[in-house]
Structures are given as structure tokens and as C-alpha cells.
């Protein structure tokens, strides 16, 4: 009798288990990517530098406390509920960085959060924002990137808790939170600067228990992953700064009370201060119109 019940249980659960494995495998499967056609693109180094600054790659990828803003050694730690992420070396080192990549590898990492080996990147890399980056901007950024120095410091391994340490599971995260909503930056450059390049929401918007952005409290502040305290709200209801004050902050780092920007945001301001006045004005426009 016991054997009969066991056999019956196996007969029912085994196919269900197999189906579950197949479904999991299919939905977490990284995308099959096609090589990018470069024939129509003409690189613009100046624009590449602007994209680099606006995207703030160096704010997370220079080593902790480094004065060289273009040496993307990695090593900064980000403490989260899922464990500690360590920014990797993304300098031009062929062995430890991304020096051996081609443009398609770079493009796919930014657009789809996928490595050249076909693995998902953890979304601590803000590809959920960068996916909206214009193709031409990615190409210019790549061209500029190739002029940056290399560093031979090996990347450190992330220290994450199970099951968040399994890259395959990020496939589910992408289905839940990564929306392929592309828009043309020529229509709304304010949104493009803040949401795609600046990826401001990645720090300034609270996250749910799976690490997805809570869109209902857009830019209302979040937990500080690089230390204690909170990332402040930049929602106009809370910030209450004028357009001129926001532009001043993004240019000099001075708040309306003449306090000075600090921590990670100092690097963000240093980058944005090198953009045009118009770009800072467009960023301010976006921040003032958040509902």
C-alpha cells in the first residue's frame, strides 16, 4: 500500500518537477543576441565623453577614494538586502577588465544586461536605465571608452545570499522589472538625461523586496547602499528647490543653503558640471515636473 502511494506521488510530482525545470530554463534563458551592424555609425569622441559623464560610470567603477576619475578599476562595495555587490574592473585591461570586448559585447551589456558569455548581469549595474540609451550614444561611448586607461587589478567576487547569487534567476527579475520601453531622446531629452543616462531613479527611488523600483514613489529617496543614512528624495514635493537652485547644485555642488554635496553624489555633480548649461536645465526641468 505504501509503495503504491509512493509510486503515485512520484508519478504526479516528477512530471510537474520536469515541467517546472523546463519553464524555469526557458524564462531565465539569456537572449540570443545578434552582432551589431556598425556600417552606418560614425563615432563622435566628444559626444562619447559627454555620454560617459552623464552616465556616471566612474561614480561606481573607480576604486574607493581614487582621484583618477577615468581609471575604472572597480572595488567599491554596495551593501544591500541581497548581500554585497562589488563593482568590477571595467577598465581596458584585457585580462581583468573589458579590454578584450568588441562593440557588440559592450552594446549587449548596456542594452540587455548580458555578458559576452551569455550570463545575466546583476541589476546593481543599472542596465534597467541604460537600456534606453540611444544606439549612437552607446557607439560614441564605446569609442571614447577605448581611449581610457587600463588597470590590472582583478575584480572581486560579489558576496550575495542564496538564491540571489544565482545569475540565472535574474532572468525572472528582468521579466518582472525590465520593460523594453524605448523612446527617442530627440522627443524628450530631459527624460533621457535623467532616466536613461543619469539613472537617477536607481538610487533615488525606493525598491521593493525583490529590488525592483517602486514607481508609485518615484524619486522619493532610497536606502544608501554605500553607507549609512538615506538617499534623499528629489521629488519636487520634498526637495522644494527652484530650477536655478537645482542648476546651481548640479554645477557647483552648493545646495540653496550653501551646504556642499558629499559622498557618491559629489562625483555625480562633478560629472554633470562638465555638461552644458542646457543639459543641466533639462535635468532641472524633469525634476520639477515629477508628479
Amino acid at each position: 500500500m505504501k509503495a503504491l502511494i509512493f509510486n503515485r506521488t512520484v508519478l504526479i510530482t516528477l512530471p510537474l518537477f520536469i515541467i517546472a525545470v523546463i519553464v524555469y530554463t526557458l524564462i531565465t534563458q539569456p537572449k540570443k543576441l545578434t552582432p551589431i551592424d556598425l556600417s552606418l555609425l560614425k563615432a563622435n569622441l566628444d559626444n562619447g565623453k559627454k555620454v560617459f559623464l552623464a552616465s556616471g560610470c566612474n561614480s561606481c567603477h573607480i576604486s574607493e577614494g581614487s582621484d583618477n576619475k577615468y581609471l575604472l578599476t572597480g572595488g567599491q562595495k554596495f551593501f544591500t538586502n541581497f548581500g554585497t555587490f562589488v563593482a568590477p574592473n571595467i577598465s581596458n585591461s584585457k585580462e581583468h577588465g573589458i579590454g578584450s570586448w568588441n562593440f557588440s559585447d559592450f552594446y549587449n551589456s548596456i542594452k540587455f544586461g548580458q555578458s559576452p558569455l551569455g550570463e545575466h548581469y546583476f541589476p546593481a549595474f543599472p542596465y534597467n536605465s541604460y537600456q534606453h540609451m540611444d544606439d549612437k550614444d552607446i557607439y560614441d561611448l564605446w569609442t571614447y571608452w577605448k581611449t581610457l586607461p587600463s588597470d590590472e587589478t582583478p575584480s572581486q567576487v560579489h558576496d550575495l545570499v542564496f538564491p540571489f547569487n544565482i545569475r540565472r534567476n535574474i532572468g525572472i527579475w528582468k521579466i518582472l522589472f525590465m520593460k523594453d520601453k524605448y523612446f527617442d531622446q530627440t522627443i524628450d531629452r530631459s527624460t533621457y538625461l535623467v532616466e536613461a543616462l543619469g539613472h537617477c531613479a536607481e538610487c533615488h527611488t525606493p525598491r521593493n523586496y525583490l529590488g525592483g523600483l517602486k514607481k508609485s514613489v518615484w524619486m522619493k529617496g532610497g536606502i544608501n547602499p554605500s553607507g549609512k543614512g538615506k538617499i534623499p528624495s528629489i521629488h519636487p514635493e520634498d526637495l522644494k528647490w527652484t530650477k536655478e537652485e537645482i542648476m546651481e547644485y548640479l554645477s557647483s555642488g552648493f545646495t540653496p543653503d550653501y551646504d556642499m554635496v558629499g559622498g557618491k553624489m559629489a562625483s555625480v555633480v562633478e560629472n554633470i558640471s562638465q555638461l552644458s548649461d542646457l543639459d543641466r536645465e533639462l535635468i532641472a526641468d524633469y525634476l520639477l515636473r515629477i508628479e
Partner: protein
Amino acid sequence: MVSLTLKFIFMVIFLSSTLLLAHTGVKNEDVMKRMNLMKSMAENSKILGKMLKKKIPFNLEQAKSSLIEISKLSRSTPSVFDKMAMDPKSESKMIIWEEFDNFRDLSNKLADDTFSAAKNLSDVEDLKPALKNIALGCKGCHSRYRE
């Protein structure tokens, strides 16, 4: 009657100190000293910023006095950070005390730069580079030593 007056005085002292602490929520006195020093720096920078943006009229004496005040406060900064005091509300990073010599050098550089700006200040046009230098000096410290 004397006892009632004393009670009233104590009550006023108690309420004022509570209000003072409640203002920032900082309990540690050393941290409070640091914060007050930074606040004074910001207040003086604000005067210069307002003059530069023509929100208040340019006044050479007042501008010089603000620059000298910032210079003095910068010079005093290492002394208020000398003690490794922490508070839940503090935004200072521990690295300050690991790199105290560098922290002191940065503070002294800002003190020297603002003193020299005060000496050379003659009109409102000189305020722009002066304030830019203050911003650079403050940022140099804040980016590395503040959360």
C-alpha cells in the same frame, strides 16, 4: 517664590537645550561642534553667493569678512575633528581619522585659499573665482570624507 522662579529658569534651560538638540537630533557634543562649524561655513558662503547673484548688494567689507571667517573656520576644522566622535546623525566617514594628515592638509589649503582671496578681493568680479575655489575646497573634503 524663589523656588518657583528657579523652577521656571530650569524649565526654560531644559526646554531650550531640548529644542537645540531636537533641531538636528544630534546627541554627541563633539559632533554638534563639527556640525555648527560647517553650518557657519555654509552661512558665510551663502552671503558671498547672494552677492555674486546680486540678490544682495555687493559690500566689499562684508565679503572680505566672510572670506576671512571661512578661512578661520577651515583652519579650525581639524581641531574639531581631532576627537573621533560619532553620532547616528553624523555624516562623517571613519576614513577621516585614518587619513587625518590629508584631511588637515585639505582644510589648511582651503584656509590659505580663502585668506588669499580675501586679501585680493576688490570688486564683485573677484567673487566668482573665490567662490569657485571654496566650492572646490569643500568638495575635495566632502566627496572623500562625508557620507
